[in-house]
């Protein structure tokens, strides 16, 4: 088997510095926004007592899901023994860590009391999925760092496979935990469903792979390293399978709900007359995020074009973000039903469709932590050998 050579990117071009400074500006704006929201209170955001989780949570959960999904490429190489993916495994682990760092910093900076992070790290209620998630997330960092170390240190290479197995198991548990944040909410008709956990796992496979492909294609293009058609073809096909799988779970979720009379209200809201949420669901999530990328990935006219494959991955990212927006915000916009069969009114927005307009601060926070993820990943590939020198086609791979 061919030896894989990894090399840091040079990172000395003016373009690289401009890029990093731009990211730093976004990070700074995000931090400033978080400080503003904390010192003035959340009334300066679009979040209310009705929509308690807003766009920061959409950013956070997107990054957390992508983090565990980004690790898949490494899992495929070490758990399922696919040699073609082996050169990509380091980058896969790296993105898993940096995306999780971005996601968690969004969550923490949106807390009402981010200064009490130490309380969250030292005082636990083990009936809470959130408390489990604190262990799952911090554990994920440790597990992936060890996994990366085993991959990058020749003396430890022998242990890559068990570490990969363990990391794979951990990431499945982690995403089960993320999905269950919603799945266990008995009171809310949009969420209380066991299908949330497996659906979130598939969503993480999809979003993580899309982010991974975009980062890989961008860095290889910018550093002028060869990226063979075979690698891209495999990743693209995998992307197609994951898009179809997420669509399947979305369909099962909605069909189940439609069948339950009690939940027809929320289903009609999301699917038929929920205004912006209905539009986001059909146009954003289904058309732009699923159908168009599926066509780009599989149709013979498009499937060989590198830019169109990158476009498919980018649409998946946009569609995934919209999907989480519909789940998180749309699910809260529909009022809690305390009295079935009654027309309800009160001073506290009972029985009304709740409105939400994200403030510039929340968006800046989300963009800032996204920039943090990219910044960390870019620094890492500059100082450590994460990227292979070449991913040019190896004739042996295509017959594998």
């Amino acid at each position: 088997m061919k030896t894989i050579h990894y090399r840091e990117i040079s990172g000395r071009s003016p373009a690289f510095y401009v890029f990093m400074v731009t990211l730093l500006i976004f990070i700074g704006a995000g931090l400033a926004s978080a400080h503003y929201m904390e010192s003035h209170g959340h009334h300066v955001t679009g979040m209310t007592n009705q929509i308690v989780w807003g766009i920061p949570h959409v950013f956070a959960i997107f990054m957390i899901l992508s983090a565990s999904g980004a690790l898949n490429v490494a899992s495929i190489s070490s758990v399922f023994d696919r040699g073609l993916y082996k050169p990509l495994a380091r980058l896969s682990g790296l993105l898993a860590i940096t995306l999780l760092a971005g996601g968690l910093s969004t969550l923490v900076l949106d807390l009402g009391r981010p200064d009490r992070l130490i309380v969250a790290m030292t005082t636990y209620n083990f009936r809470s999925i959130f408390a489990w998630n604190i262990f799952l997330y911090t554990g994920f960092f440790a597990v992936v760092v060890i996994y990366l170390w085993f991959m990058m240190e020749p003396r430890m290479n022998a242990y890559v496979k068990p570490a990969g197995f363990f990391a794979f198991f951990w990431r499945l548990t982690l995403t089960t935990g993320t999905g269950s944040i919603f799945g266990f909410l008995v009171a809310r008709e949009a969420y209380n469903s066991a299908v949330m956990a497996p659906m979130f796992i598939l969503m993480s496979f999809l979003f993580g792979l899309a982010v991974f492909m975009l980062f890989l294609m961008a860095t290889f293009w910018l550093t002028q390293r060869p990226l063979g058609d075979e690698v891209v073809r495999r990743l693209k096909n995998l992307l197609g399978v994951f898009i179809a799988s997420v669509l399947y779970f979305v369909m099962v979720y909605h069909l189940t709900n439609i069948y339950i009379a009690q939940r027809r209200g929320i289903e009609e809201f999301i699917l038929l007359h929920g205004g912006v949420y209905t539009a986001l669901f059909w146009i954003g999530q289904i058309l732009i995020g699923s159908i168009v990328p599926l066509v780009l990935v599989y149709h013979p006219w498009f499937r060989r074009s590198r830019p169109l494959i990158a476009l498919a991955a980018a649409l998946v990212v946009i569609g995934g973000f919209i999907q989480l927006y519909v789940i998180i915000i749309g699910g809260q916009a529909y009022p809690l039903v305390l009295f079935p069969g009654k027309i309800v009114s009160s001073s506290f927005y009972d029985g009304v469709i709740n409105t939400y307009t994200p403030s510039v601060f929340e968006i800046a926070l989300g963009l800032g932590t996204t920039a943090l993820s990219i910044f960390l990943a870019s620094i890492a590939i500059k100082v450590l050998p994460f990227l292979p020198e070449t991913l040019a086609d190896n004739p042996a791979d295509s017959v594998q």
Partner: protein
Amino acid sequence: MSINRRQFLGAAAAAFAATALAPGFHLVELALADSPEQGASALKRWGLLIDTAKCSTGCDACVTACNKANGLVSHNRPETDSQWIRKVTLRGEHTGYVQSLPVMCQHCADAPCVDVCPTGASFKRADGIVLVDRHLCIGCRYCMMACPYKARSFVAENITGQIAEVPRGKGCVEGCTLCVERIDRNKIPACVEACNETGGKAMMFGDLKDPESTIAKQLASRPSTEIRADLDLDTGVRYQHLDV
């Protein structure tokens, strides 16, 4: 006397550890001296019984009294202003029958907010009152997502002129405390008092576990129900004449 480097480091470490741990021991002492269990007994379960037949649509005596007793002031931002109790008007979709009732924290025995709280800030006192520990709440709002009754509010701005007995804080979640500070002084909750004095005498407060209490006798003699009884949360607040 001269000490070597090793001894010095050892002594410094011991001094540091003592400094770091001492406040902890002090806290343990404080906690033992003033155990919350002393005030709240599991032999009691405080609850409310609300007779919707006596609650009229136009009356909001309970809401006004709650706001006054707990220092809740409006910032003219109804979407983020705290509301611990609210009057809800119901009209039967198929019948047209109109009812009015107050809704607040239902002080569930199996409270979803207590289950989901990562730090244990949402907790249930031994006597059944569900509260938020303002020192442990990190403001994640998961309890607000979990509460079936929309009973909690998030403090979204600075608070001034607080009432000493009812500490509140920006960035924390809060909700009806059943006027725990009044109960601990053998007084009834402000909403119940106001309803009895100026409202329709629709609210009754008492110990659900004491078979001799008025509330327990009333519950034993007439039908009553919980809101979202399907969730089986065993609420401490129950309603009579509620057409659900």
